[in-house]
Structures are given as structure tokens and as C-alpha cells.
């Protein structure tokens, strides 16, 4: 019952946060002086045509009304205009891109697999490498293993992903000719090629992020290892492996999971930089294109979708917490 209450409360909190962010995003993007109707009214843009375009897209209403229409569209779908020129946007409608003549939801659906492939693969890799290196460094504290792991992680934290990515392309792609330098093959088309094209982005992203996790894990592990219950566990005669794995790691994972949720969430919302470096057409590339053409509905849609992913990831993190540390939900 307690757990159920906890989950419901968290869900409500998530919905509230999402609503707050959507109001903010909507207000910011529609109050700023860039008139979407003006941008897509074509030439010559007579006042009459501008008014028509405005009414067609629904921009003639006050922004609060537009926002409610937007929310309604997510639940029930929307129609723009009437008659032959009418445009249909089925639920869940996150807006309609009048530039690309496609519903935003559909565009996100097309691009999401690319971004998700990059993000999830990299995240699994960096979690394993980062936590592994951190634990190793903490257990072998003060040794050469520890020092080199920490020095490497400082280097990793300082290297921008695009720089490392470009150097990776230069070395492994062009010079050694080992891996493809860009492009994306859908998983459903050919799983081997899919993975093969993603090896470089995964490794680059994973190595750089692993640096952060290694430092975090090491610091936490050192703190945990000085706790009384670890001494008790050792005194009981448990094997070191079990002390570290069961008693140590479990407590180390709490802050690691927090950071992981945030990182994975924001990466899912658009691996903007990696997509540009490895020329992949994911959500990040979609956003950059939308920004280039000032496609306002698309910008708002992608931004909100990204925010949703982050918040959802946080929600999952909270659930994982209550599994790792039952005290949380009480």
C-alpha cells in the first residue's frame, strides 16, 4: 500500500512538472517576436494572406487559448483549417509542422529510433565501464590502478564529445578504415550493420561519460567503505567480493542512478552533438533543422518531448530508488 501511494504521488508530481514545463516552453516560444504565420505566409505576403495563414494555424487566438488547444490536441487530436485544405493531426498531436507538412508526432516517431539507438547503447556501456572503473579505483585506493583511472577520468571529463568523436572518426574511420564514419542503418533492416554503424558513437560517448561515473562511484565507494556496517560485514567473515558487491555497491548506486537518469533522459531527448558529428538523422538533427527554418511548432514539440523523456527517466529513477533503498518510499 505504501509503495502504491508512493508511485501515485510520484506520477502526480511528474504530471505537474511536465505541465509547468509545457506552459513555460509554450509561453516563451510564442511570446517572442517571431511570427510563425509571417514566416510561412509566402510571397507576396499581403495583410489578408497573413491573416488567413494566422487563422489557419490558430495563431490569431491569445496564447493561453493556443496552449489549451495544444493540450487538447495531445489528448484528442486536432484539425487545422476547413474544407479541402484542412489538415488533420491525429492524437496524440504535438503540433503540426506547416513547413514539412507533417504532424510533429509523426516526425518524432521517424527520428526517435536513431537517437534511442545511440543513447541506450552508449548508456549501457558507460554505466558498466564507469561503475566498474570507480569500484576498482576505490578498492585499490592509492595504487597505480587508482591513480591512472582518476587521471584518465579527468582527461575524459575535459574532452568535449564532438572533439573526441571527430578524432575517433579521423583515426578509426579515415586512417585505419575500421569502422564507418557516419550514417544509420535501422535495426529492423540489418542488426549487424546497425551495431556496426553505432560502434564509434557508442564508444566515444561511453568513454567520456564513464569518466564522470568513475569519479562519482569512487568517491561514494570510499565513503561507504568507511561505514560501520562494512566493518561488521567483514567481521562476520564475509568474502571481500560479497562485502563490496552486496553491501558496498548497493549504497553506492543511489547517487549513480540519480545522475544516470538525468543523463540518459537528456540524451534520449536528442543526442544533438553526436548526431551532428556522426551525421545521423535523429531528434537532435530534427531540432537543429527546425531551428534553422524557424519551424516553431516543431521546435516546441521536440523540446517538450525531450523534457518529457527527462522527467519520465527521473520518475523511473525514483522507482528504482525505492527498490535499492526501501527507506525512500516510507
Amino acid at each position, binding site marked *: 500500500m505504501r509503495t502504491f501511494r508512493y508511485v501515485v504521488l510520484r506520477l502526480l508530481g511528474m504530471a505537474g512538472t511536465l505541465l509547468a514545463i509545457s506552459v513555460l516552453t509554450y509561453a516563451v516560444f510564442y511570446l517572442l517576436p517571431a511570427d510563425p504565420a509571417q514566416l510561412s505566409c509566402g510571397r507576396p505576403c499581403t495583410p489578408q494572406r497573413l491573416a488567413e495563414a494566422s487563422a489557419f494555424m490558430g495563431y490569431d487566438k491569445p496564447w493561453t487559448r493556443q496552449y489549451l488547444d495544444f493540450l487538447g490536441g495531445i489528448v484528442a487530436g486536432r484539425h487545422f483549417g476547413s474544407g479541402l485544405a484542412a489538415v488533420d493531426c491525429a492524437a496524440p498531436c504535438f503540433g503540426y509542422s506547416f513547413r514539412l507538412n507533417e504532424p510533429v508526432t509523426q516526425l518524432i516517431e521517424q527520428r526517435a529510433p536513431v537517437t534511442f539507438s545511440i543513447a541506450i547503447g552508449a548508456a549501457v556501456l558507460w554505466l558498466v565501464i564507469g561503475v566498474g572503473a570507480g569500484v576498482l579505483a576505490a578498492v585499490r585506493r592509492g595504487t597505480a590502478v587508482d591513480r591512472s583511472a582518476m587521471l584518465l577520468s579527468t582527461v575524459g571529463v*575535459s574532452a*568535449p564529445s564532438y572533439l573526441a568523436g571527430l578524432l575517433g572518426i*579521423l583515426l578509426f574511420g579515415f586512417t585505419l578504415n575500421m569502422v564507418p564514419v557516419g550514417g544509420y542503418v535501422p535495426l529492423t533492416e540489418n542488426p549487424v550493420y546497425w551495431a556496426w554503424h553505432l560502434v564509434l558513437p557508442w564508444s566515444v560517448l561511453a568513454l567520456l561519460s564513464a569518466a564522470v561515473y568513475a569519479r562519482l562511484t569512487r568517491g561514494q565507494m570510499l565513503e561507504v567503505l568507511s561505514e560501520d556496517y562494512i566493518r561488521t560485514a567483514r567481521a562476520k567473515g564475509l568474502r571481500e567480493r560479497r562485502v563490496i558487491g552486496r553491501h558496498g555497491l548497493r549504497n553506492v548506486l543511489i547517487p549513480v542512478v540519480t545522475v544516470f537518469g*538525468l543523463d540518459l533522459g537528456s540524451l534520449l531527448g536528442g543526442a544533438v552533438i553526436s548526431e551532428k558529428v556522426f551525421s545521423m538523422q535523429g531528434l537532435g538533427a530534427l531540432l537543429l533543422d527546425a531551428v*534553422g527554418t524557424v519551424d516553431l511548432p516543431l521546435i516546441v514539440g521536440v523540446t517538450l518531448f525531450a523534457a518529457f523523456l527527462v522527467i519520465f527517466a527521473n520518475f523511473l529513477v525514483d522507482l528504482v530508488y525505492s527498490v535499492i533503498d526501501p527507506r525512500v518510499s516510507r
Partner: protein
Amino acid sequence: MVVDILPAPADSAMPRTARHPLRRLLADRWAVAGGVVVLLFLAVAVAAPLLSALAGHDPYTYDLSAVSDAGAPLGFGGGIGAEHWFGVEPMTGRDLFAIVVHGARTSFLVGFAATALSVLIGVLVGITAGYFGGWYDRVVSRIVDVLFGFPWLVFVIALGAIAPARFPKQLLVILVIGLFGWPSIARVIRGQTLALKRRTFVVAATALGAGPVHLLRRQYLPNLSSTIIVYATMTIPGMIGAEAALSFLGVGVPPPTPAWGRTIGDAIAWVQTDPMFLVFPGAALFVATLAFNLLGDGLRDALDPRTRGTRR
């Protein structure tokens, strides 16, 4: 990432045997190396016009004689030589040394300004939230949570598109990355303020009838100063990186103002034919960031009495 640091009270409690933080810092070879490199970069940023004048080129003038008809730089390593120390930019033939040196200016200006903004807001918000508590604290903590989970890169990119063209882009970059950077500082400062609240010297000052202004200025701030210094130092490389990332994506500092990130972005198209065009600005960005991180780590260890025994 939240690293909490409990400062020693400024007035006493430090054992006499403990060495001065500065001496501890100077004993850390990596931190000293980082500090020296940071100072070097700072000198370069300040003296950029002088340095590029010494080299004989400014970062704006085109030199089409230095590039081939296809736009590739002529000569070894992207045109490296006595004339152009770091070679030239493909297509335009602008001097890469001048671009990198002036780029340091842009990076440091944006990095420092955005950090100052973040730290100012973060400290103000954190200290007041921790001190006053109650509903104000709950609201602030909620806002911090939301901002933490915000896909700020996506948002900032989108914002760049719709900002009025007249608004100076460099200022916009400083404002947006500064305004998204404060939550982590606010969270740490809030936590420490809460911890300070229970310390005897604060309780004593309160009992003596000290008002909030005196408490915040005379009791809390001095004890938070080491945390603020450490956090500011550790925030700068993040801000420099954020500016470079935005410029890399083409939504940061606009041309012709030299920016490392934008040059690295331009280098994508040339990475196969002219790798040196990537290497120079890339190395500058990487070394500057690394130096700040090393200095920040060293400062943290030197100012934080807790990590002393546990590290090494």
C-alpha cells in the same frame, strides 16, 4: 553531481597543525600545473590583439593566396609555416593562430561571465532557501529539481532561433547558459547553509539577537566562501564547454567573432583533408578545460578538510 563540502568555521576549530590551504594547494603538482596553464591562457586571452599583431595577422582578413582553388590550404599541415604559425582556415585563408588566440578571449569572456551569473544566482537562492526554509525553500527546491531535469541544450538551441536578430548573440549565450547553470550551486549552498544553521557559533549569534542580514553576511557567507570558490572554479570549464558546444552546433557565438567551438564545427568538413584545422582549436579547448578541472580538483582537496586523510 553533488559533492558536499563541509567548511570549517572561519574563526576557529582548525587544528594548528593543519597547513594553510594555499600551501596544500601548492603541494599538489597537478593542481599547480593546471593553475599555471590557466594563467597562461588568461594572459593569451588578454593579450590576444598583441599576439596576433606580433604574428602579423588578424583573425578577420581573408588571404585567398594561401588556399587552393578548391579552398584547401596550400602547404604542409594546413599551411603551417613562418607566415602562418598554425596554418590557415580552409576556404578563407584566415590565419588560424589569430583565430585560436582570439578564440581564447571569447571562451574566457563567456565562461567567466556565465559562471559569475550562475554563482551569483545560485548563492543567493541557496543561502536564502537554506536560511528561511518553509514554503519558500520548498518552492525553490522544486524549481531546482525541474531545472535539473530540463533538457537545457535542446531548449537553448531552440531559444537561439527565435531571439530577435538585434539582440547581441554573445550576450544571449552568456545569459542562457548562466541562467541554466545555477541549480547545482544553489543545491549545494542550500545544503551547507542548513548544516551551518545548527553550528554553535551561528546558534550563539542568533541568541545574541543578530538579524538575518548580519547572520547571512557575517556568519554564513564567510563560511561558505571556500565552497563558492571551489564551485566557481569547477563551473568555469563547464561554461566554456557549453559555449563551445553551442558554437559548434552553429547556434552560439556568430561569425566573424572567433570561437573555438565554431571552428571545430567548421573542421568537420575538412577532417580528412586538413586535420590540423581541427587539432589546433581542439587542443586549445581541451587543454584549457583540463587545466581548469585540475585546478578545481586541487582547490577542492586543499580547502576541504574532510578529503585530506581519505585521498592518497
